[in-house]
């Protein structure tokens, strides 16, 4: 958005230890634990992988590359989490990367056999960024359990592209690649469903939002930042001051007015 490619590359390198090429598109891979995220990761990247830790954290970080239609992609595997409201180091890593690493696409992998619980994470991520593609994985497991997932309805409901896969049998991977490619090239436009809160919360958001908008200046989704501030999420304010050049005290003070 407002960040140049060089700035994004610098942030990725210095804050997240990720070296990307100039024309490479960055895909973040998110999902609950045990949804086959690593299977999707391996299926897409094969052996072109690099593993290590997130800078300063004892959390594994895997990156891999792949090429589709002559477009190079860098896939970053985020830790498996149930939430990104950042209470564990893993959640913080996942949230900070999606917020400040500014991936071109965040691919959220869901377990088709317990979709309801998994959608929590997808909705949380859609509050941060509209650039989300959903992958409903473990479709083979779901079939065994006689669970049918209406992908088209889910897509309509969420407002972002949804692809069904069974990554361990390579089922649906071609479509996934094609959707990621089209999405990253702006051929698929997401229009994620916004989550509305209770009237009290919405009224509070409305009061603070203009001030946050001025401060954040489209570096982050202002509505999401407002919601986090209302939540009293101190850790997030610290992350903002670490990754963005804003004064956190000023942010906090203005929010409290």
């Amino acid at each position, binding site marked *: 958005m407002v960040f140049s490619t060089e700035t994004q590359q610098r942030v990725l390198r210095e804050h997240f230890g990720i070296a990307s090429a100039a024309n490479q598109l960055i895909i973040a891979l998110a999902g609950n634990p045990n949804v086959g995220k690593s299977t999707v990761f391996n299926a897409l990247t094969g052996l072109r992988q690099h593993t290590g830790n997130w800078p300063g954290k004892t959390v594994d970080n895997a990156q891999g590359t792949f090429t589709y239609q002559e477009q190079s992609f860098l896939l970053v595997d985020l830790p498996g989490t*149930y*939430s990104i*409201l950042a*209470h564990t180091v893993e959640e913080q890593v996942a949230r900070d990367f999606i917020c400040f690493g500014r991936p071109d696409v965040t691919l959220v992998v869901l377990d088709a*056999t*317990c979709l*309801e*619980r998994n959608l*929590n994470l997808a909705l949380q991520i859609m509050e941060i960024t509209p650039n989300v593609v959903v992958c409903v994985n473990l479709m083979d497991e779901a079939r065994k359990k006689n669970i049918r997932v209406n992908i088209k309805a889910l897509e309509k409901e969420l407002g972002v592209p949804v692809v069904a896969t069974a990554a361990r049998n390579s089922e649906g991977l071609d479509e996934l690649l094609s959707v990621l490619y089209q999405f990253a090239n702006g051929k698929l436009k997401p229009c994620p469903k916004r989550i509305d809160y209770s009237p009290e919360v919405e009224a509070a958001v409305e009061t603070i939002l203009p001030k946050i908008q001025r401060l954040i200046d489209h570096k982050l989704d202002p509505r999401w930042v407002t919601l986090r501030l209302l939540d009293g999420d101190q850790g997030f304010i610290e992350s903002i001051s670490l990754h963005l050049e804003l004064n956190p005290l000023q942010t906090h003070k203005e929010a409290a007015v």
Partner: protein
Amino acid sequence: MNSKSEVIALSSLAAGECCWVAAIEIHGLLRRRILDMGMVPGTTVECIRRSPSGDPIAYKVRDSIIALRHDDASNIKVFTSNN
């Protein structure tokens, strides 16, 4: 909600019994985690089994099974139906 419903602690449910969540009287980290697991007011919860010592207890929530400590489950208030 059913007028015959009474509010009890989730921990007092016997294996096989069902209930709806009324209130989660837990704060901080664990509250967030429980909400993230899909256990919110109104959610149907079934007690699947209790471990021999009665702690922890397994519950089925939205097609997945989660285990809760007895102490924590006792701070989750639920409705049960008498009929």
